[in-house]
């Protein structure tokens, strides 16, 4: 029986510590981890909870992130509640096994503290690791601050473990900006947190010796496609369970989460679409532009990156007077538009108003994203809206030193 951990109704926690408390309160059975900056304190704290008797669980030290995710997959197949944390290069090393975990339909929670991928080596926050996981079949939740990191980590367990879902879940937060920034956090007490998360109900667990099961089977062209189709449908259908879980969380805490968060969008003519800690900066910019220049600016922020909320993005655009949207991608896209731009464009194409959409690559390697930069981007959208067409390259690099860098222009005669 674990000892009681005293927590106050109001705490000052950073994103890492907040997530580690959520893992403790969810009574995670197994954490197999290979620590990496900036997510190290998550698993370090879990290890200390185990060592000091605050949780009945196992901390498994492994030789790499590939081994960490492999051990987590094995523990999940055995029937345990499993979680770990990683960032950047560690995430990249996990990728092979990420696909195994989701294909085997094993719920677990991976708390990702977003960090740039080398080269050049960089420990600061950008979204290149989050994007690397976007086809891996995991549910990806995105927290914009420490409170949300705590809340979403708690929500991740009942979402992924729901018998209609049975998929692993990532909870993202921005490296340092969120993970190391101490702020006011309102935690739940252990009993109510665990009651919300609920007991884990294992399926096809290997430790049930009365019913043998094979995990990790091979399928070739005769079966593989059917299994991937079923997995994709489960991921798309998880939207309902995510909505229900967020509703249950709101009833418990008063804190409301939606698969797409919107700010001042109802009458907005221009908007920024962003992820992570940039959302708050963008909101400040939109507020200031409304006050200072009367520009009707708003912000759209996907809370769930996978399954991508095409439905809610479409509805948001359809029910607002948006004319121009800037989609911000905090990841070097490697020869294409940014991933978020592509998703937003796909959703926007189904709307009747089809706003002008441009793409900004920004904040790479933790480059600061300021309110001034956000205001400049929004003002540029206002210029597109007034002109009725895109007046710049469709993709631009924002905040990089040197001559203006942009690609792909609208063809105009």
């Amino acid at each position: 029986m674990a000892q009681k951990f005293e927590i106050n109704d109001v705490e000052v926690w950073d994103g890492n510590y907040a997530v580690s408390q959520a893992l403790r309160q969810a009574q995670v059975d197994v954490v197999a981890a290979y620590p990496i900056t900036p997510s190290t304190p998550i698993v370090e704290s879990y290890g200390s909870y185990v060592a000091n008797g605050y949780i009945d669980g196992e901390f498994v030290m492994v030789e790499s992130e590939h081994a960490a995710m492999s051990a987590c997959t094995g523990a999940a197949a055995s029937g345990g509640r499993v979680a770990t944390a990683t960032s950047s290069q560690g995430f990249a090393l996990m990728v092979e096994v990420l696909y195994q975990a989701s294909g085997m339909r094993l719920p677990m929670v991976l708390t990702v503290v977003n960090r740039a991928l080398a080269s050049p080596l960089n420990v600061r926050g950008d979204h290149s690791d989050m994007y690397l996981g976007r086809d891996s079949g995991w549910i990806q939740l995105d927290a914009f601050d420490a409170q949300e990191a705590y809340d979403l980590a708690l929500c991740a367990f009942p979402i992924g473990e729901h018998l209609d879902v049975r998929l692993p879940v990532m909870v993202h937060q921005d490296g340092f900006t969120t993970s190391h920034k101490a702020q006011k956090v309102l935690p739940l007490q252990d009993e109510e947190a665990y009651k919300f998360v609920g007991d884990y109900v294992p399926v096809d667990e290997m430790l049930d010796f009365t019913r043998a099961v094979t995990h990790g089977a091979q399928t070739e062209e005769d079966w593989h496609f059917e299994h991937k189709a079923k997995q994709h449908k489960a991921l798309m259908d998880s939207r309902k369970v995510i909505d229900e879980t967020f509703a249950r969380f709101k009833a418990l805490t008063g804190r409301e989460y939606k698969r797409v968060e919107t700010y001042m969008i109802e009458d907005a003519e221009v908007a920024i679409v962003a992820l992570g800690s940039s959302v708050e900066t963008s909101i400040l910019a939109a507020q200031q532009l409304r006050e200072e220049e009367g520009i009707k600016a708003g912000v759209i922020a996907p809370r769930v990156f996978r399954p991508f909320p095409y439905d809610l993005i479409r509805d948001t655009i359809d029910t607002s007077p948006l004319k121009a949207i800037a989609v911000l991608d905090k990841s070097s896209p490697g020869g294409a538009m940014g991933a978020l731009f592509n998703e937003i464009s796909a959703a926007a194409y189904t709307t009747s108003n089809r706003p002008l959409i441009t793409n900004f690559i920004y904040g790479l390697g933790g480059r600061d994203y300021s309110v001034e930069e956000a205001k400049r981007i929004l003002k540029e959208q206002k210029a597109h809206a007034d002109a009725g067409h895109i007046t710049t390259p469709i993709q631009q690099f924002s905040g990089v030193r040197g001559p203006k860098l942009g690609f792909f222009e609208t063809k105009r005669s």
Partner: protein
Amino acid sequence: MSQNVPGTPKRGLRELGAEEKVGWDEVTQGVAINPFTSPTTENVAHVRPEERDYSDFNSYTATVASWRVLKPVYNRDICIDCQNCWVWCPDTSIISRDKQMLGIDYDHCKGCGVCVEVCPTNPKSLLMFDTNEELDVALSQWPEKKKKEK
């Protein structure tokens, strides 16, 4: 079919034509496969394979030897039942009961030839032939005992 072993019925998925019938909505979740139809008897290790309640999803009931090029052929007249081939076969495709060699499970043998390599008799009791060779033809071509070279 297994050589010299009273016919175990083919019940594998391919034989059942399952891949033409089962859609994405019917496959198991996460490719989790139950190897037995009924709840497993916990002492299954003590039940002979041909008496186990293997499910259609068990590889025991499926042919997984389609890429075999050469096959081992077993000659009962020479074998001394030493069990070397049974020990070394990487695919448990040597069928032996009560330490008596019965034959080869051609539904699972990949034709690696390890059994032939480890066979100690003279001539060998197992030899590799083209996988399409008739068994009686193969047996009629068996070599004579080799004399020791002086």
